[in-house]
């Protein structure tokens, strides 16, 4: 861990201003990912801005009939919220599928969106990684890739995004609210929030330097059957090989987002028209253009079969 300076921000706009003033500054909330990465010198911020006391920890109804989730709402609290459990079951289930009870007690909504990949080569500082050290190359390509991306990857990076929560939010069409250094706010649809790696895998989100997430809003409830199915090598406390977030209506229409397959939660809205015709057709469309490795090609079959299982349960 490199030495760093620390301050506690007084307001969201102050935090954003402070961050834009100091190159190499990072916000810290739960710290469940950032501190680990700092110990390994994968993250080396010179300055930390503590945003824990900004009061962004409420869950409130929106005038449109949706829900506004403060950036600092802890994963445990969000999963336990009665409105989330009743109206956004896919989100509650996704949260509880992630990490462990202790981590969920600390981890925040915004921090969960911003967690970084678990690619083992990203974590080993003796290995080249374009995400960790832009331009150094990608050791994962051609290496151990069983966990890594099957679609939307690039010649520079085949990492996946590790979040469960974000996959459910992608299915729900959540919107990320932010504030910038100049005090201006903006609303970023979650579909545009996480980026594909392209040539710049170190740029992971649409956030600008110093821009602070203040909340995530959910549109009014969709109804339907909510499922979050996370498939992994052990029963708990593991990252997804594949996960399926689905909201399925009585008529068989619905929405599907995937975790564990790409650099961001993966959803192809146009493919959802195939859902009433079954998992095989739908998943073929969702994963059209996939380029798996020989070690992770099973994820294509797994995604299809997991979706089939989810649809079967939705039908009752």
């Amino acid at each position, binding site marked *: *861990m*490199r*030495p760093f300076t620390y301050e506690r921000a007084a307001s969201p706009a102050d935090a954003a201003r402070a961050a834009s003033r100091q190159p190499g500054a990072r916000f810290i909330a739960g710290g469940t990912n950032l501190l680990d990465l700092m*110990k390994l*010198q994968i993250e080396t911020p010179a300055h930390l801005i503590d945003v824990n006391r900004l009061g962004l920890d409420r869950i409130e109804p929106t005038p449109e009939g949706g829900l506004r989730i403060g950036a600092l709402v802890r994963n445990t609290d969000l999963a336990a919220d009665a409105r989330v459990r009743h109206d956004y079951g896919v989100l509650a289930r996704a949260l509880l599928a992630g990490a462990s009870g202790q981590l969920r007690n600390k981890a925040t909504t915004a921090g969960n969106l911003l967690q970084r990949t*678990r690619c*083992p*080569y990203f*974590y*080993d*500082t*003796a*290995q080249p990684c374009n995400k960790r050290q832009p331009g150094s190359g990608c*050791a994962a390509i*051609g*290496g*151990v890739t*069983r966990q890594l991306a099957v679609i939307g990857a690039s010649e520079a990076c085949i990492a996946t995004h590790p979040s469960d929560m974000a996959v459910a939010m992608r299915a729900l069409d959540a919107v990320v609210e932010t504030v910038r250094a100049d005090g201006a706010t903006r609303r970023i649809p979650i579909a545009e929030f996480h980026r594909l790696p392209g040539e710049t895998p170190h740029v992971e989100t649409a956030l600008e330097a110093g821009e602070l997430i203040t909340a995530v809003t959910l549109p009014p409830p969709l109804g339907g059957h909510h499922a979050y199915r996370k*498939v*992994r*090598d*052990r*029963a*708990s*406390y*593991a*990252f997804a*090989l594949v996960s399926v977030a689905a909201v399925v209506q009585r008529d068989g229409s619905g929405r599907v987002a995937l975790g564990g397959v790409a650099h961001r939660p993966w959803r192809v809205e146009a493919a959802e028209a195939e859902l009433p015709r079954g*998992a095989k057709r739908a998943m073929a469309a969702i994963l059209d253009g996939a380029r798996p490795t020989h070690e992770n090609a*099973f994820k294509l*079959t*797994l995604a299809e*079969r*997991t979706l*089939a*299982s989810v649809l*079967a349960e939705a039908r009752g």
Partner: protein
Amino acid sequence: MKFDTPATSNPIDQLRVVGQPVDRIDGPLKTTGTAPYAYERHDVARDQAYGYVLGAGIGKGRVAAMDTAAAKAAPGVIAVVTTLDMPRLGKGEMNTAFLFGGAEIQHYHQAIAVVVAESFEQARDAAAMIRTRYVREPGRFDLAAEAPKAQLASADSGEGSGAPQEDRTGDFEGAFAQAAVTLDETYSTPDESHAMMEPHATIAAWEGEKLTVWTSSQMIAWGRRDLAKTLGIPAENVRFDSPYIGGGFGGKLFLRADAVLAALGAKAAGRSVKLALTRPLIANNTTHRPATIQRIRIGAGRDGRITAIAHESLSGDLPEGQPETAVSQTRLLYAGANRLTALRLAVLDLPEGNSMRAPGEAPGLMALEMAMDEMAERLGMDPIDFRIVNDTQVDPEHAERPFSQRQLVQCLRIGAERFGWNRRSATPGQRREGQWLVGLGMAAGFRNNLVMKSGARVRLHGNGAVTVETDMTDIGTGSYTIIAQTAAEMMGLPLEKVTVRLGDSDFPVSSGSGGQFGGNSSTAGVYAACVKLREAVARRLGFNSAEARFEGGQVRAGNRSVPLGQAAGEAGLTAEDQMEYGDLAERYQQSTFAGHFVEVAVHAATGETRVRRMLAVCAAGRILNPKSARSQVIGAMTMGVGAALMEELAVDKRHGFFVNHDLAGYEVPVHADIPHQEVIFLDETDPISSPMKAKGVGELGICGVGAAVANAVYNATGLRVRDYPITLDKLLDRLPELA
């Protein structure tokens, strides 16, 4: 004392304390966090500075240059010692890889520097400032690719197990060719990590030429000897102390870089130094269970009797390394006149392969007991019946050598009844519950019982209490407790009158903890010392030692009763002895047996396997403490589930290292993976084993579990996966189409 004739009756047989399921005597210390582990011994040496070990970033080659200027100038740094500062150090007798010194890199994360600083954070930060230039060399990292170059090799684990390079009885090839029913299949097991909770950790302090290390070691005498040898100093100048150990599983049998670099760092800093290996270093810097590729051939008559059995195993290791003895159990487990076992070793440039819980048998039975399941199906026999038909009460290679005790058949029969084996469908893939396919599997468990010379010192105090000292270790197994139980039984005392002190090289040399020999061997050593103490007490109190009874804190004979403490006098009374063994192990085959039963559910859509219930029925001699023995067995069963379903060090075959070198990437079972577990111990004593009539049990618990899980997966799905771990991707393409 020498144990060279079968035990007759002795004070242990009273079973007033021994054999009782008493709580761990060190339990309160552990549960209150007051049992200090190596890294927490803040009081043993003054001015402890912090060390941080830097591992090499290449799999094979040389260190061309190291720039330490920035690290040395970093805040708080006291000393930096690099591998280029000294020629290659000596090597301990038990080590394969060199631990430090010189430019050559044998494997990834080999230690290349230690940084000593005022704080851990400063040491870690400075270590990251060291710039190292390497010359990479091509390495051999792919076991299957190296197979053609592998050579026959014998093995001696150094902790009692071993196997010749090739072993033949009868005419295997002829009998196999003529057998009515045959099997010829290949199985593979991956590299595995011990993944113990406490990392390797040491505090080192020098006083002149004298070095003390407070460390985490299963084998005190080996560690002391090998540290001295590595540093090139006399063994008498080294003291090893390791009273509490947070798990070892074989990973702490041998001297590792933590002790060497703490000693070197302390020397350079002129201060005591504490350091722990970071989690990423444990996979690649220390040892692991090596991967195997095993070919098994079995030939049998239509009556199910095995006429030919062959087991050949390939594994890899660094130069001067040894093969994994995966064929050991196949020499002894089943009858059959024509037999062949062989070990082949390929040279690999991966980190050192070495002992991990039940080395040999654990991966060997994962293959053999799956082959037995497959063979039973080919014969149209129940897998239990097939094993019973081929039971043997003598060493199949030497019919004149009986097993001292062999209750395998009883284990299987009792297990079948308790587990509800009759509810298993002989045809796989028949039982479905919702989206889950459910199946039952079983396997025989087998692990040899080793006995090791072990010494102890027992001191009687004036208040009638007793202190036992031995360099035996408690790696979480319960050694403290069974040693206290032994001394209490022998001296006629309640448990709370016995104090046990372990893990210090100033104490008499014991068996140490490994090869499941520690429980029986170390208590036998305490028995020997107590016999001596009883004689001394009797002498002092004027009793005929043959007549004296030690009970309730009194020594009694006839009408006379004297408090035990009276024999101690002012100075106390001390006796020291060790238990040595004659040739009983040659005249009798001593082994432990189990029947393992597992029910799994496999998700019909995703192929996820979840264990639902497990049962182990164990025949392992006298159980000294059923509570701690049960803990050993359920822990081992858990490890067996990990081996069956998830544990695998993933090899980067280009760069030569284990990629998933942390506990997020190397998955072991979590609570949610482990269902209802039940353990039954058969009521057994083995007078051939020791005066304790006990045997090992801590490794028996894992032996066979992996195959029982695999066989249950087969029973659930009809799919046979011969390549461990059985992850869902190996089932997925063959699972039934979904509606």
